């Protein structure tokens, strides 16, 4: 059963000042102690999340709202397991798909097909699994012969189409999104919208960070204000 449990999660980012980032300074800090030591090892820490408790189970659709810097993306990354909390505990069960950056791992020199494979491998698929998805992805992008060309020859829109199609090809239990995605020209947009909606429906838990009241209202059944 896919589920997300966060218990009193606090995440702090150490901001290494220019000085403390070097080994010399942290050694000098250790040796000299006293005044300089305090000065040098004075890490500033930004608290992105504080004492957050959250339980999500199958069927939950959570919308995360808050101003810039409220910790929305950090929360998504904590759920994805990228950031481990400074204190508190995280337990996530189920296969996670993150749509935070759909053009992850794209190589401009590689062809469209190669990019599908590379991206798929990065998302944890085997080459055989990718092979079975390839055709459907290729068809959806409508890029045709362009898929055999290096993607540096693509326009921005074509680029996005490819990334979008790959990202939404693999079903997942838990879906993490940073804003609703809208790609392509008018005709493609409608198609993409439909695909994304289906994709979200297939997942059992959705966590979406958004600034748009409308998106949140439409997609989610609960809201978290950070």
């Amino acid at each position, binding site marked *: 059963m896919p589920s997300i449990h966060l218990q009193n999660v606090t995440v702090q980012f150490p901001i*290494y000042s220019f000085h403390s980032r070097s*080994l010399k300074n942290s050694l000098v800090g250790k040796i000299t102690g006293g005044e300089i030591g305090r000065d040098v090892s004075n890490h500033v820490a930004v608290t992105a999340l504080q004492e957050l408790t959250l339980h999500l189970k199958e069927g939950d659709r959570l919308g995360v709202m808050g101003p810039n810097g409220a910790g929305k993306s950090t929360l998504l990354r904590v759920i994805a397991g*990228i*950031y481990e909390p400074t204190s508190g505990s995280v337990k996530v069960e189920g296969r996670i798909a993150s749509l935070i950056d759909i053009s992850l791992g794209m190589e401009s*020199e590689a062809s469209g097909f190669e990019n599908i494979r*590379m991206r798929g491998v*990065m998302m944890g698929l085997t080459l055989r699994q990718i092979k079975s998805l390839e055709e459907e992805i290729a068809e959806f992008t409508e890029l045709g012969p362009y898929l055999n060309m290096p993607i540096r020859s693509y326009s921005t829109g074509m680029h996005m189409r490819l990334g979008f199609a790959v990202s939404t090809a693999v079903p997942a239990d838990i879906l993490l999104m940073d804003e609703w995605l809208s790609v392509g020209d008018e005709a493609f947009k409608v198609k993409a919208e439909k695909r994304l909606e289906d994709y979200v429906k297939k997942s059992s838990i959705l966590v979406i960070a958004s600034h748009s009241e409308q998106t949140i209202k439409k997609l989610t059944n609960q809201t978290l204000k950070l």
Partner: protein
Amino acid sequence: MQSILKNGLTEIIKALENHAQWLYLGVQDIKLRYRRSIIGPWWVTISTGIMIMMLSFLWSKIFGSNIRTYMPFFAIGFIVWNWMSSIVTESANGFFPFQSAIRQIKLPFPVFILRLSMRLLIVLAHNLVVIFLVLLIIGNGLSWLSLLSIPAFVLIQLNLLCLSVIIAIFCTRFQDMSQVVSTFTQIIFFFTPILWQPETLKGKSYLVEFNPVHHWIEIIRAPLLGSMPSVDNWLWSLGTLLFLLVTSVYALGRYRSRIAFWL
């Protein structure tokens, strides 16, 4: 302590299991790098070949040694060294080259190290041609004993994997360390018998006996030149592996969760 080592070990095992993520992507890295060139990675072979021919000629004159014995010695040492040093200097970039992936999906960190090693292994494979040509044309050819360099090579590859995990973590935390690492790598090159043969040291053989890099190179080079690697070579290489393995597992277990914050 125990749980740190356990965490580190699971991280490594997970990385090895995800073999598509470094095998396929490592090969892909090479393909893309040479995509627009006609002979592709064979440029590496050609440039190494020319370099070794010219330098062997020069250095054998300077040292007054026979080019037939010097050139095979230098070719193997130089190619193996280039492979080792590029692993070290590339891992000294830390995890920064992979930061967009790290911030996006959770992957075991050794995956990135393995991917980088895979790419450099392919470069080495292209350079092997030079070694074989030199051995067959200038040197004494190959014998059954040469096969011993395969297990030796595996041993050194493992050493280097562990070493690069440690270096990558260290250099991600302390960014200015990558300069220090590359300086040291250059110094080690001159302190290790690659250009010069260990016999020239005469009474000062301690200079090579306590240099682990010498043992790492010699254990691969000796069988290819037709002699057994010494017991010392094996003991040093196994000893360093044990040390580096424990250290890298500890470093992974201890700092794994911090790396994303350092980027």
